[in-house]
């Protein structure tokens, strides 16, 4: 799976959690929490959504690595086999 494909999945999962937000406007280096006003329950739902889509089990200790869009893609790329 390419980074673009991972990014697309991340945006899709985020879009289900914050449906009113325009995902195209997300700044990849800014914190998702600040841009989308998400809380710990949203973060958990995000992690659950990524797990369902990508089968990646993200431990709580790694949540901080998902702070930005780029951070998410980096993390998931590193933990997904066969990513370009």
């Amino acid at each position, binding site marked *: 799976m390419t980074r673009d494909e991972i990014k697309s999945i991340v945006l899709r999962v985020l879009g289900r959690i914050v449906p009113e937000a325009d995902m195209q406007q997300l700044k990849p280096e800014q914190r998702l929490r600040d841009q989308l*006003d998400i809380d*710990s*329950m949203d973060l958990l739902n995000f*992690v*659950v959504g990524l*797990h369902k889509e990508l089968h990646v089990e993200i*431990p*709580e200790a790694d949540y901080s690595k998902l702070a930005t869009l780029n951070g998410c893609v980096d993390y998931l790329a590193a933990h997904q086999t066969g990513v370009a």
Partner: protein
Amino acid sequence: MAEFVMPQLGADMTSGKLLRWRKNVGDRIQRGEIIADVETDKADIEVEVFATGIIERLLVRPEERVPIGTVMAIIQEEGKLPGVEALPIPAMTEVPAAPKIPTPAVLAPPSSAEVGGPRVHISPVARKLAADLGIDPVSVSGTGPGGRITMADIEQAARARKAAPAEAMPDRAARMRQIIAAAMARSKREIPHYYLSTTIDMSRALAWLRQENLKRSVEQRIVYGVLLLKAVALALCEIPELNSIWSNGKVMQCTDVNVGVAISLRGGGLVAPALHNTDRLTIDDLMKSFSDLIQRARAGSLRSSELSDPTITVTSLGEQGVEAVFGIIYPPQVALVGFGKVTERPWSSDGQVSSRPVITATLSADHRVSDGHRGGLFLSAVDLKLQEPEKL
């Protein structure tokens, strides 16, 4: 025979608009079943019925806005002859002389005056006319004896509305802001608040949570807010006067502990629906209910009992970086608990200073119902519960 009335879903609600009936005349319904959808200024609500039987008549049409307490349907209760018996209403008795009330949910919807809203003096026929014409009696000045609203007043209000230039209906966010403003202003005006705060060492609770979540699949993980909610619920069992409502100048303790959770809505505003029987739910069940409640609150599919039943409110602004919350009580409740953010602080214990995660818990309470002494005991109880997370 039972009446299904427009419920009062919070102290700030005076009327609601029927969006649709989910049942028809002749349908059999069960107590607790959702039979209608109602639009309020805060949200679209799924309204449950508190009787079991057969719907005999539907008295309100979809898109019709009616005042709270308006009879919307007549239900022929199972095993009862038509027209023989009204919907049973549990006695509300002043504390401490009487037993606790089961929960506000099973009471007939209180009048506005009971929950601190404006009292409406209006005859039944005028109320019916107001409902037919879509006039909210709260907005009408009565010219009858003692300010009572007459049919003529309603007709005059209807004519005035017709004559007035069309005014843009404010959007829901603006209306929500208005009603929150009204409810909070009334609370600050009428409720003598007192405030207490304490700092709680969260190291044990968070360590326990980390270990628990390590054992769990992603879907079964718990957020720390659930521990706070359970601790509050259990502490209320020890200091029950804070789990009460203030109605008609009297305090009534509630048997059920239904913690209302302040949930911010993404479009602005907030709701505080109840987690029913919070004290009796396991941590896992509480997590499921909490998650479900947040999702439904933000999706606009709350149920009527969730809005009418809270016996206390918990608000947490820690994720917004706030250190301490000194909130305003939501009437007719008599207390609100606030939590700030978990932050690392120097902590002295057994002669040793170390860095520990701590949280500031606050209590806003109604001085007509409790004193600082009891409020302090309540916060201590919350603290103690969080020191034994495995027992939550």
